[in-house]
């Protein structure tokens, strides 16, 4: 068995940023494990621009953003094993992995950072009736075919789900000569960024059908069309509104699921709302020495936030390796009205940095409301917000002095208030 101070599972944006931050915090014994043949993760296929506005104050494409981090990893000579699949993680931080050159091997790690990212919800999660013809793809799979392999998935396309990947693919496929008939969204609002609605759909006159879903897939060997119907307030199709839309391809952009099989194997507690690990302010999970960051923890809209979150995990993994004691008392972070989840979900006042960033999503669209923070029952923040929407991750900043000046503090509540 090999020994390593820090093993990072995943070489995408989260894993790379965590590795660089851990190195810069003084740790040298780092190993990144990546299952693809290159570092960079999903950014390699996200060839559109719009990445890095927060981090670099310029607009990069996905490959350019990841290249900057890959270069930093290479400059620091941080070890990375590619084409390497991690198949097990134990609660005492034994990582089991496999690749062609080393075969099956085990690593005893002082600390582990989970950075496996997320994957797309498949057709099976939706229960759409119909046969199993060719021509049904998740939007990300289609993105890989077009942008990396150079194959077009079809000519006449319907996209179900208006998440950002679906919107981006509507534009990509249009530019490459396909006809995108429409994007259907079961919710009354899009989960995608406004900028993507305008620049990917409106620019190309692609209709966005809100409160509509696909109720049937037609065709036996190849998709021949789909039935599209309006849905009611309970998201159930309304009888009589069904319409046949001819197409040879259906793309699904219906949500992302953090990829937490290894996390579960290790026995880490999972938050059912995020499908990611439950973590504290240091992004440490419920198992000591196992940290999580990026889309494996909760699905992000912007890679910039993935990078900053992962840097925090990298630094804190090094603090753990050096034996930092966080103290025993932790304050719970609770979700009040309108807040679906928070990351982290508890904070140790004794170990909190000057500012603790709490990221969260709302459960609905709220206009002209207030974002409030309660320390036990005392309201310490009441911020006017013109709009809060589930599609955009929000954050509140908790200064350490709020925690340190209230020794008996039990809980912090984040909530949306009408007034």
């Amino acid at each position, binding site marked *: 068995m090999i020994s390593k101070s820090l093993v990072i599972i995943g070489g995408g944006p989260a894993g790379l940023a965590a590795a660089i931050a851990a190195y810069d915090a003084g740790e040298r014994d780092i190993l990144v494990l990546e299952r693809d043949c290159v570092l960079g993760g999903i950014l390699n296929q996200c*060839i559109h621009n719009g990445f890095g506005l927060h981090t670099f104050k310029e607009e990069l494409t996905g*490959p350019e953003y990841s290249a900057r981090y890959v270069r930093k990893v290479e400059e620091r000579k941080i070890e990375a094993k590619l084409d390497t699949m991690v198949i097990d993680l134990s609660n005492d931080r034994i990582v089991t992995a496999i690749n062609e050159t080393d075969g099956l091997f085990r690593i005893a790690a002082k600390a582990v950072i989970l950075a496996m990212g997320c994957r797309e919800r498949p057709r099976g999660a939706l229960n759409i009736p119909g046969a199993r013809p060719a021509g049904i793809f998740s939007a990300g799979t289609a993105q890989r075919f077009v942008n990396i392999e*150079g194959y077009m998935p079809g000519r006449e396309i319907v996209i179900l789900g208006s998440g950002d990947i679906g919107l981006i693919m509507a534009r990509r496929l249009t530019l490459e000569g396909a006809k995108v008939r429409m994007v259907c969204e079961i919710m009354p609002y899009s989960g995608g960024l406004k900028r993507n609605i305008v620049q990917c759909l409106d620019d190309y006159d692609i209709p966005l059908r809100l409160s509509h879903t696909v109720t049937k897939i037609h065709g036996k060997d190849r998709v021949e069309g789909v039935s599209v119907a309006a849905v009611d307030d309970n998201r159930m199709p309304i009888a009589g509104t069904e319409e046949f839309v001819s197409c040879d391809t259906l793309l699904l952009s219906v949500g992302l699921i953090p990829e937490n099989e290894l996390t579960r194997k290790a026995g880490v507690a999972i938050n059912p709302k995020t499908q990611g690990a439950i973590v504290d302010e240091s992004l440490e999970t419920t198992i000591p020495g196992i940290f999580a960051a990026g889309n494996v923890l909760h699905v992000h809209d912007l890679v910039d936030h993935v990078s900053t979150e992962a840097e925090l995990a990298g630094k804190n993994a090094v603090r753990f390796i050096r034996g930092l004691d966080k103290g025993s008392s932790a304050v719970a972070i609770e979700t009040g009205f309108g807040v679906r989840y928070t990351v982290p979900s508890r904070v140790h006042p004794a170990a909190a940095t000057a500012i603790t960033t709490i990221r969260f999503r709302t459960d609905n669209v709220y206009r002209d409301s207030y974002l409030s923070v309660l320390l036990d029952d005392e309201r310490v923040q009441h911020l006017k917000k013109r709009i809060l929407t589930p599609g955009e991750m929000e954050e509140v900043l908790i200064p350490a002095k709020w925690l340190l000046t209230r020794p008996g503090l039990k809980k912090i509540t984040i909530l949306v208030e009408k007034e």
Partner: protein
Amino acid sequence: MSEKKELTCIGCPMGCQMEVTLENGVIKSIAGATCKKGELYAAKEVVDPRRIITSILPVDGGIYAMAPVKTATDIPKGDIRKCMECLKTIRIDAPVSIGQVIVADLGGTGVALIATRDIPKR
């Protein structure tokens, strides 16, 4: 001659529906914007909408079949189709390096087309 143009603001999730009134190509009023940022966006978007275009090109002899590319700066929205047609005629050879200029002037826009990823030789 008076003309009205409708557009959606991309500045924030509000997505304000705005209506710009033009007279002989000059902006007379912007309705519907609820902040200054929105007005500035509308003013630019109505007169001179521009976009960065990203796509891919086939690569010969590289470790990947396709190389991602982008226009070095934004180009007029009306030139997007023409530029995509130009891309269809281009094949490149590996190695390709990030930032490499593939075409100095894409489709007469005066804007360069550059590679956005390293593609080493196979």
